[in-house]
């Protein structure tokens, strides 16, 4: 298992952003869905070792991120795209990706080729020497994705990766996600349900800091069948139904077991 989380919480003052999340996942593309303020970004930031948990157990790539050396090893094998990624306006695209490759402690001799490969992968080869300040929002997002995957991470965490991408780019990006998910654990936080349906093998739905659904996209779709849940597509109806069930006062078996999940306690 590349991600092992048990009863993880994170508080900001009196607000509990993440309230006892438990999940385990291995290679594949894992979708993290939920409304704004559900705790997706806080969970992702803890998995990125940027934010320490308030309590609970977190193991990434078989290591404990609470200690210096294991945390450094995790970070060498990690790719992270934050929701709001800052850019150095004077950097070229290639310089930007190279900078983070160096900060990930990739062997310097391997960096130029890794940068070139990654830029071609995200379709920015023709913009490699363009300054970041000259790029569109979608291109900047792709530059962000490039820095996340430049080290061929074993654990890739993407927060709203398709924001700003046009439909054609999103289709290409989903194909890239599926490819990356063959060998790495890819966790994608998104509010775009169609991204999950197209790319994810596993999905979790968060609400008020808890995971209220955990299963396959097909299982989420099944939640919306024969209900009056809102949504234009089956997955959207499943999302709405699962969310409505979680919000109702009646206690429900909120977590289902996905094929690759070995531990999924009730939310």
């Amino acid at each position: 298992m590349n991600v092992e989380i048990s009863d993880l919480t994170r508080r900001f003052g009196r607000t509990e952003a993440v309230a006892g999340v438990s999940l385990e996942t291995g290679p594949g593309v894992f979708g993290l869905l939920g409304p704004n303020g559900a705790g997706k970004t806080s969970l992702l930031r803890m998995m990125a070792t940027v934010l320490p948990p308030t309590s609970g157990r977190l193991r990434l790539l078989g290591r404990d991120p609470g200690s210096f050396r294991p945390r450094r090893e995790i970070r060498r094998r990690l790719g992270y795209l934050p929701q709001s990624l800052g850019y150095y306006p004077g950097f070229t695209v290639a310089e930007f990706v190279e900078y983070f490759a160096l900060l990930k402690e990739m062997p310097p001799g391997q960096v130029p080729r890794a940068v070139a490969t990654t830029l071609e992968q995200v379709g920015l080869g023709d913009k490699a020497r363009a300054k970041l300040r000259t790029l569109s929002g979608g291109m900047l997002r792709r530059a962000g994705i490039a820095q996340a995957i430049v080290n061929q991470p074993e654990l890739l965490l993407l927060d709203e990766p398709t924001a700003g991408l046009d439909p054609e780019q999103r289709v290409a990006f989903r194909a890239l996600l599926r490819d990356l998910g063959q060998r790495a654990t890819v966790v994608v936080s998104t509010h775009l349900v169609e991204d999950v349906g197209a790319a994810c093998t596993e999905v979790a739905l968060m609400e008020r800091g808890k995971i209220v659904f955990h299963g396959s996209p097909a299982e989420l779709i099944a939640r919306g069948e024969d209900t009056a849940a809102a949504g234009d597509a089956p997955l959207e109806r499943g999302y709405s139904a699962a969310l409505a069930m979680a919000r109702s006062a009646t206690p429900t078996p909120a977590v289902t077991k996905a094929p690759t999940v070995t531990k999924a306690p009730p939310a």
Partner: protein
Amino acid sequence: MNGTDAGPPDVDLDRVWLGVAAQVWRRQPGWLERAAGRLLRSPGLARALVITPSLLPGWLIATGVVLVAGLLATRGTGTPYVPLVAPAVAGAGVAYAYGPGTDPAWELSRSMAVSDRMVLLVRALAVFGLNAGLGLAASAASGTAVAITFGWLVPMTAVCALALAAATVSQSSDVGVAAGMAGWVITVLGARVASGRLIAAVADARLVLPYLVFAAACGAVAWYATRIPRGNT
């Protein structure tokens, strides 16, 4: 030409192109970055150092202008203004060396193998060293007494440590600058009221030990504020 449209069958053009692109797109680090990389044994840390916001040309020019103004004022009035101005300038530079709002990709940098605490330390030391050098040059050029020329280095250390501690605890460079400036102004005015001399804050040898103790305490606070707590296992 007829019959020459296909290349040799064993040539992978994509692979060749990536090799070419890797060479064309690669950045050649300057001598300073190469030297820093050798010294720090980390090309990533060296790159992080040379893009320190308060070491960029615009900031250095502004620092130079302030110190030259202090130098001219010192020569014109006979009052040593450079030692009074230099600690505040250095404190601001240290506070703006690294942090949210200062470094564009700060959030991302915190997830990197090269620790952000190390980046902060290296940048803060570099800014401190450069400001000390510039301040000493300006102070020496202004023709003040030797005791005053070097006397402000210890207060400058305390002001920088205060700015760094405030910036790391609050996670705001602006708060760090405000704390450093306010602390220094209060110290200068307090020393003047107590002794009747404007320059007392940098010229009074009895203040050296309190400055050093205060700087050490602020350094400890900054170190504590930048730790990643254990206990998440």
